[in-house]
Structures are given as structure tokens and as C-alpha cells.
């Protein structure tokens, strides 16, 4: 079965690439300082000076969107990183454990964590530790651990039945060596796909949290908070809703398509079923 590029992969990579490019360019250039208040140009429309206009404080919307992309990616990377680095070893451990108690214990703890959706966990974190980007990222990451653990466990159980793992065990390889040499390389593709899908979920969660005031604190630009500020101005400046909304939609669509595309690319047998 040959691997070939598919439309989802190409479109997804292009959309994600657009968000990443915006974020990277924002490190070296933005049209204006994104947090600079300029009362003289409050709620200005589209113009050559401000391509996407300004908000109620006269801040340049394009500059905020660019830096907002950075915030979005940062939250996504940390949240998915936390989930992947904690969930994968737990799942592999549950899949490789000789003791049924260890395996069951990990998976039941996992199930318990599933009862705390990301948004709820982040609000709890916000209530106890105070709202910030950090608490949002960690909460989203912790809430995503079960997804990685489940996938890692089910694939590990399959890999552990293969002949090459039986041969490695017969040759006296330690469990850590088998995990590093045989299990992880074989589950990596699935985890990469899951990382892309989880990234999209993290983007949505961060936007919702910032919208509620539990995410990125002002003045750091965030798409979710831009939407919160735009809500009160729906009657006079609906365009302020458009751009951060479009940013979120492009990022989520991009990561979802990328995930689908990667799955089809890495496992061509599944392609026709989606």
C-alpha cells in the first residue's frame, strides 16, 4: 500500500501553515504595537493604515490577530505536550504491565479524569489558582491525558502480541528497552494524528476560556478575549467578531484536517472509510 498525499493533508497543512506563519512573523514584525492604545482612531474601519481596522481602544486588529495566533499556538503546544508526555507513558505502562492491578488502576484513574472536561477543569483551576494562560494550558493538558493514554494503551496491547516483541522478550530485553525500541516507534504515528486533533480541541478550549475570562489575561492579545470584547460591540462594530472568529475557525479546521490527512497518509487502508 503506497502512501500518497491527500486533499485533507494539503489543505490542513496550508491552514496550519498560515497560522504558524502569522505567529512567527509577529515575533519580528506587526503593523503596530498590538497593545498600544490610540484614542484618536477608536473603532476605525478598514483602511490602508489599519488593514483590519481598530478596536474600541484604537488598537490595531491585524497586529492583535497576529500576536493572538502566537498565544493560540503556545497554549496548544504546551497543552498537547503535557497530555502527550503524561498520557503516552501511562498508556504504554498500562498496555505492558504484567499486573492486572497496575493496568486497571491506570485506566480507572483515566476514566475518572474523563469526568472532568477541559473547560470545567480550567474553571476549577482558575477558581483555586487564579486565571492565567498557564492554568488554562495545564488544565487543558491534564484533561487531554486520558485520550492519549487510551490510544497508547490499545495500540501497545496490539504491538505486545507481535512476534518481534515476543522475540525481544525471549532474548531477555528489559521492558523499558522493548518500550523504547519496539512499542513507541509503532504507536508514534497514531499519537501524532491524535496530537493534531487534540491541538484543535485545545485551541477551542483556550478560546472559550479566554472568552469567559479564565484564559489569557489582558493586555496579551488572545482570539477568545478579542471575541469577548467584541460581544459588547456587536451592534456598532460586528466586524470585530469576524477576524478573531475566523482565526479560531481556520486554526481548528486546519488542525482537524491535518489530523484526518495524516491518518489517511499513515494508514492508507482507512482512507476510503472517511
Amino acid at each position, binding site marked *: 500500500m503506497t502512501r500518497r498525499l491527500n486533499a485533507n493533508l494539503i489543505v490542513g497543512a496550508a491552514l496550519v501553515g498560515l497560522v504558524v506563519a502569522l505567529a512567527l512573523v509577529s515575533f519580528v514584525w506587526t503593523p503596530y504595537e498590538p497593545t498600544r492604545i490610540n484614542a484618536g482612531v477608536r473603532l476605525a474601519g478598514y483602511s490602508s493604515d489599519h488593514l483590519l481596522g481598530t478596536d474600541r481602544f484604537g488598537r490595531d486588529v491585524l497586529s492583535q490577530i497576529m500576536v493572538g495566533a502566537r498565544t493560540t499556538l503556545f497554549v496548544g503546544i504546551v497543552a498537547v505536550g503535557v497530555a502527550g508526555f503524561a498520557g503516552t507513558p501511562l498508556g504504554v505502562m498500562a498496555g505492558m504491565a504484567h499486573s492486572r492491578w497496575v493496568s486497571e488502576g491506570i485506566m480507572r484513574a483515566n*476514566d*475518572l479524569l*474523563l*469526568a*472532568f*472536561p477541559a*473547560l*470545567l477543569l480550567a*474553571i*476549577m483551576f*482558575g*477558581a*483555586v489558582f487564579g486565571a492565567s494562560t498557564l492554568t488554562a494550558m495545564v488544565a487543558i493538558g491534564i484533561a487531554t491525558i486520558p485520550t492519549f493514554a487510551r490510544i497508547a494503551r490499545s495500540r501497545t496491547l496490539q504491538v505486545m502480541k507481535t512476534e518481534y516483541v515476543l522475540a525481544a522478550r525471549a532474548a531477555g530485553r528489559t521492558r523499558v528497552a522493548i518500550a523504547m525500541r519496539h512499542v513507541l516507534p509503532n504507536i508514534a504515528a497514531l499519537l501524532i494524528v491524535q496530537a493534531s486533533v487534540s491541538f*484543535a480541541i485545545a485551541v*477551542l478550549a483556550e*478560546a*472559550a476560556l479566554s*472568552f*469567559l475570562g*479564565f484564559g489569557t489575561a489582558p493586555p496579551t492579545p488572545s482570539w477568545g478575549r478579542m*471575541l469577548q470584547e*467584541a*460581544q459588547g460591540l*456587536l*451592534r456598532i462594530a*460586528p466586524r470585530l*467578531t469576524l477576524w478573531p*472568529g475566523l482565526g*479560531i*475557525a*481556520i486554526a*481548528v*479546521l486546519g488542525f*482537524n*484536517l491535518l489530523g484526518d490527512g495524516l491518518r489517511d497518509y499513515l494508514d492508507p487502508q482507512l482512507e476510503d*472509510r*472517511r
Partner: protein
Amino acid sequence: MFLVSLLLASIAVFAFMSVLPGDPAQVALGVQADPEAVAQMRARFGTDRPLVVQYLDWVGGLPTGDFGTSYVTQAVIGPQIVDRFLVTLWLVATGMVIAVVIAVPVGVVAAVRHREPSGALLSGASQVGIAIPNFLAGMLLIAVFAVHWRVFPAGGWTPPVDDPQRFLRGLVLPAVSLGLVQAAVLARYVRSAVLDVLRQDFIRTARAKGLGPYRALVRHGMRNAAIPVVTVLGLQLATLLIGAVVVERVFVIPGLGSLLLDGVANRDLLLVQGVVMVLVVAVLLVNYLVDLLYVVIDPRLRRGQ
């Protein structure tokens, strides 16, 4: 197993909310308060007792709807949670109905026509729908239907017993913004489940007997396609409950989500603890009911029991 999960969840919620530094009695009376008054308040709140006793007292009250008394407003928490939960349930139930009504036909058509442009278009539309957060959908609906066309109110809540017509008009936009996004997610699973079923031999046989694609599917395939869809539906019910937290904020609806956010804003931690527990129980209960539903839908699973 369900009861064990409930017990563990209650321990997790209580332990998490108890790590907060500070004394609720001191917070209630202010930093200048007389130490004796603070001690009295602590005894009144029951926070002078060991944590284990406080936990047992709290968890013992939960089955009877006794969530304690707020440290901040001194109001009894249980009735507030019940009132607000009913509002959220209206929203979630209507959102779910909207999601199912849209997703099932869209998913089935997208599957049956998966090699045609119309099928691809429906799949693409559901991908775009998934990418739009429900609060953004809510804001867009307000902009169009409340601000521009003025056909529905932009927010607020009227209880159904007060004025059924106003209640329904107020429910439309928040429920659609919740349901529309969930419909997009659900439609993809319906499509995938129906595609799987369409490849089965019994569908091929039904088609060979002369049944059309939709008729063959309705007569022989829907029950088989329902199992994965019910799983997702259960998970989505939990997502809708949590999603309602945000949508309630957009539409200024006094539901459980608003109560939670107000509790956090006022640092009313016993209230937050109660609301979080209700939401977690709801999520666990939905997952448990989904497990039970499998057996109803697929009699083969009964043998495995």
C-alpha cells in the same frame, strides 16, 4: 463501578477545592475581624473540623440535595443549583434535539452519496461547523437574528410557566448555537457509521433484492449504525452540558454555568464545589447510561454480560 466512580469524583472535587489557601470565615468577615468572631464563624461554617469530617458531612448531604450553605451569601446552595440546573437542562435538551435532527439526515445523505459532489459538500460543511466554537456561533446568530433582523431576542430568560411564547423565542438562538456545532460533530460520526454499515453483506443482499439505498439502510442498517452514534451522542451530551456554561454567558441565561462563573467571581467556593460536583455527576451518569443503552440497541452484547 458507577458508584465507585462517583465516590472517587467527590473525593477529587473536595480535595481540589480544599487546597485553596485562606480561611472562608476570615474572608467572610474581613481581615480586620475580631479573632473570636472569626472562630465563631468557623464553627458555624464547620470549617474548624478535620477535613475528613467536613468531606463526610458534605458528601453525606449530596444524595438529599444538601450542598451546604454559602460562605459568602449565607444562602442555602441546594435550591439554587436545582433552579439553575433546570434552566440548563432546557438548553441542553433542546440543543441535543436540534443536533440530532440536523446530523442524522445530513450524515446519512453524506454517506450514501460519499462519492458524489453533494456528499463531499456536506462533509466539508460539517468540518467547517466543527471549527466554529459555540459561543462564536451564538454571537453570529445574535448579530443576524437579533441585531439585524430583530426576530429573536439577543439574550435573557423567561421561565416557561411565566410566558411560554417568550420562553420559546428566547430559547431558539442559544439552543441553535449549541445544537448547530454539535450537529456538525455528530454528522461526521453518523456518516462514518453509515459508511461502515453500507459495506456489509446484508445491505448488499437487501439491495440485490431490489431495495433502494435509503430503504435498505432504514430497514436493515440503522440499528447497526446506531451503536457508535449512541456512544458519541453520550459524549456529546456531556460536551453540551459544559458548552452551555459558555453559551449561557453569551445569552445572559441564568443556568448552572452562570451560577458556576458567578461563584468563581465571588470566590464562593462551596457553591463552586457543588456546581462542579453536579456537572461531574451528570457526565458520569450520561456515560453510564450510554453503556446500558448499548445492550438495548445490540442484543448480542447481552450474551457477553
